[in-house]
């Protein structure tokens, strides 16, 4: 088992009349366990062209009904650039240049969920995206020539 932590700090000196600072740290555990850490991850960096919505992280049987956590960051620098992040064609929101997200992800293969893959579409320019998936299993593909 591995120990992986995710920490967020939200802060502003001038949004409110006094300083605002909020910090939270969580351990990334497997679902249904008291304290067994997730021990698998994927980390990617890729270029997303404009014009098409792509599956950034595809749903798969090995990812269902468990704890998965996703981190995505938009590495572009032009402030007008953004990507839309969606699940099942339902837009969660936009990541502008420099923005990141961290969220749990429920990979659901049921017919009702339709398609729980995490989708991304780039606007304005092609985008450099980095993302991580912390998970408890991956559906491996048998090699065609074995």
């Amino acid at each position, binding site marked *: 088992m591995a120990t992986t932590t995710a920490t967020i700090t939200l802060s*502003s000196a001038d949004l409110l009349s006094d300083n605002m600072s*909020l910090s939270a740290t969580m351990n990334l555990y497997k679902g249904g*366990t008291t304290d067994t850490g997730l021990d698998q991850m994927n980390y990617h960096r890729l270029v997303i062209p404009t014009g098409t919505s792509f599956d950034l992280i595809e749903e798969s049987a090995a990812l269902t009904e468990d704890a998965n956590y996703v981190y995505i960051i938009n590495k572009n620098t032009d402030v007008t650039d953004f990507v839309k992040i969606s699940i099942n064609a*339902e837009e969660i929101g*936009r990541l502008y240049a420099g923005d990141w997200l961290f969220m749990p992800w429920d990979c659901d293969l049921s017919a009702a*969920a339709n398609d729980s893959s995490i989708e991304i579409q780039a606007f304005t320019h092609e985008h450099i995206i980095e993302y991580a998936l912390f998970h408890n299993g991956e559906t491996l593909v048998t090699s065609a020539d074995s």
Partner: protein
Amino acid sequence: MATTTATITLTTADMADSAFSVSNTATLTTAGTDTGITETTGLGRKKFATTDNVVLLDGGLTSGIAADVTADKSAKVYIKNHNLRGDGTKFVNILLAAVEIGRLYGGDWMFIPWCAASGKDIEFTASDATETTLEYTCFYE
């Protein structure tokens, strides 16, 4: 203009052969500009004891704490499940409208952009009726 930052640090010393750490800071700006976001719902903390579907942030309504969030801009939402983890079987499902995003177990947090269009509510459904405490805030323009 205000300067509000969100910093994430992901670290593990033992998942891979070498330690892994990623840290990034986003400055929260209005859509397509470098002007800082100047509005927030404030930090909310609420307790719920139901397995019913509950709307946490109402998108596109003319009243409520999210009424002024402009749709399809650069709103960001933070949510934390303040419950203890326990045996790891209790969680809240976070949904956008009817689409499930993922599960927040006790102690888990999330930080996401939010399109906030009409009907695109951020909702949750608890896995059981044990009292659940959520902390949340939204930054928006």
